[in-house]
């Protein structure tokens, strides 16, 4: 029972980390960044290349990865999205296609199997009342919580964060206050990509760096974001706990191959029953239904 609790919490925080970037980008600029999974794996690959090809030390390589991922997100906006801004379906298709293009390209250059993996920061683990947990997972837990708090502070108490929220609430009014819509959009995509890179360098060391993981990350991110309500961060956290505990419980009592069905089922259920998500408020009627 305790192991269910501990691993449930860790799984939930992992899911929240996956979804953080996706949710933030959508919440600000309204761009559903379906390239999220692709960017996640790409950041993992960049980190791997920096460490193994350029032989950079880990404390240099990982921040650099996050910065590069941010720049890629920025470029993605100015290169592709700026031309189709405001046509939601075109945005979805373009980011979706960009994500798949990245993933399939990485498959093509040989990114599968056990050859590629990132090192764990802290080796070893502890036992909490008979449940073994390694330090890396606890580290993920800590970073996840810190990141969520920092993000909240950033969005509520910095100028850029307030500009983000202004654009999210009413683009035209924000424009009259001198908030540049395209720059905020690009920044939001950059921050979202950087967050996906942070998730990648934290979580990938515990698994395999593989392209197929990218699709799952996308499913998880979309699932959490939709179930929670696309623009609400508290909703996202609640949703990641529901899905995380659901997954661990399913893995424990039914079988681990059923795990991936939990988020998919959750999306189908919530879209059919309450399309705006658990805590989604605005954009409720006119856009969804």
């Amino acid at each position, binding site marked *: 029972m305790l192991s269910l609790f501990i691993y449930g919490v860790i799984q939930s925080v992992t899911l929240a980390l996956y979804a953080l970037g996706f949710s933030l980008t959508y919440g600000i600029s309204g761009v559903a960044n379906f390239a999220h999974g692709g960017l996640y794996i790409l950041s993992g690959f960049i980190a791997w290349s920096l460490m193994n090809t350029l032989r950079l030390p880990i404390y240099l390589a990982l921040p650099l990865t996050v910065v590069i991922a941010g720049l890629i997100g920025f470029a993605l906006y100015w290169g592709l999205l700026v031309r189709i801004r405001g046509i939601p379906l075109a945005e979805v298709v*373009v980011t979706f296609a960009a994500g798949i293009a990245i993933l399939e390209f990485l498959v093509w250059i040989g990114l599968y199997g056990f050859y590629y993996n990132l090192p764990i920061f802290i080796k070893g683990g502890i036992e909490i009342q008979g449940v073994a947990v390694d330090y890396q997972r606890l580290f993920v837990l800590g970073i996840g919580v810190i990141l969520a708090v920092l993000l909240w502070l950033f969005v509520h108490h910095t100028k850029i964060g307030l500009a983000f929220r202004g654009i999210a609430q009413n683009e035209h009014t924000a424009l009259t206050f001198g908030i540049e819509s395209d720059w905020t959009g690009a920044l939001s995509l950059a921050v979202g990509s950087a967050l996906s890179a942070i998730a990648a360098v934290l979580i990938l060391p515990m698994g395999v760096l593989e392209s197929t993981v990218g699709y799952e990350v996308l*499913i998880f991110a979309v699932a959490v974001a*939709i179930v929670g309500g696309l623009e609400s961060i508290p909703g996202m956290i609640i949703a990641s706990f529901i899905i995380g505990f659901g997954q661990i419980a399913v893995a424990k009592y039914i079988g681990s191959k059923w795990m991936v069905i939990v988020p998919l089922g959750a999306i189908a259920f919530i879209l059919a029953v309450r399309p705006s998500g658990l805590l989604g408020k605005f954009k409720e009627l006119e*856009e969804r*239904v």
Partner: protein
Amino acid sequence: MAEANLKFRRERLDRGIKARSDTIYVISSYREILYLLLPRVLPVVGLLVLPLVLTGYWGKVLIYACILGLLALSWDFLASCGMFSLGQAFFFGVGSFIAGALAKYLQWPPLLTIPVATLGGGILCAAFLSPVVRLRGIYFAMITLVGPMLFSRLIIATEYLGGSHGLSSLTPFTNKWVPPYLAVGALLVCLFGFRRIINEDYGLVLNAIRDDDRAVMSAAINIYWRKIQALFIAGSVGCFAGAFMTHQYQFVGPSAFALDYSILPLTAAALGGAGTFAGAVFGSLILVPLSEALRVLAGLRITFYCIVLIICIIGLPEGIFHYLQRKYQQFERLTEI
């Protein structure tokens, strides 16, 4: 140069022959009848002759192109009713598995399995998606994206219907002329059928649902029921494609729900131009042979499709077909402002 641009602008006018052939007087001249018939008859004759010319490998490519054309048509039909699908693979997979299961467990011949899979699959797809017809835009797109993934994982996890190994050694088509002509025939019937449906009053309502669903609701039309009907039609076409391919490959597995079958029809429709159906067929007839010619790229194929898709959406949003249609019907000239 800048000044010249300021003083002149391009103006588009209908060609005289277009204006003349719009009315009943078209029958007064062979030239005008030809102008109307040529773009319709030429592709039909071409598609009917091609199976005779192409045999072996390229014959298979033609069949594949037709099947993707059917999926693209089904996508276009849904899109013209405001339902934007990212998961044509769902229809394809449902049709495949119905046909595969009937052929494997009940030993039905293709003559029976394909019609049953087409109709039954259409009903099943419409029933499965009926709770979400309320959704619009990207929310509908997301749920269609999730659908095929959910089903392929379910089949792998439950190990029903062959699980991850799939069902193999199913009954093939007996006559070698059946597959190409069945594929081409289905494509032509769907193409002209859909064009007809959309031009009827029925299609007018569907188009209106895409443009402004509130207005249609206020005209006391049940848009959800109409959307379910559209889902049934599009789903049947997708299921037919799946059932056909099951017998063609003599195999069905979770790969029937693969992303390829979602992204390729979308690319074809975007390349050819959405909304006319002819564009979707045109796109898949270009895209499939092109990708076969680029077979050296092997694993890069999906990347290639994605890049084509991105370029089309950003660079040529109207699609090739709309462009050609404009050139055929209109001419451009500079006029002074």
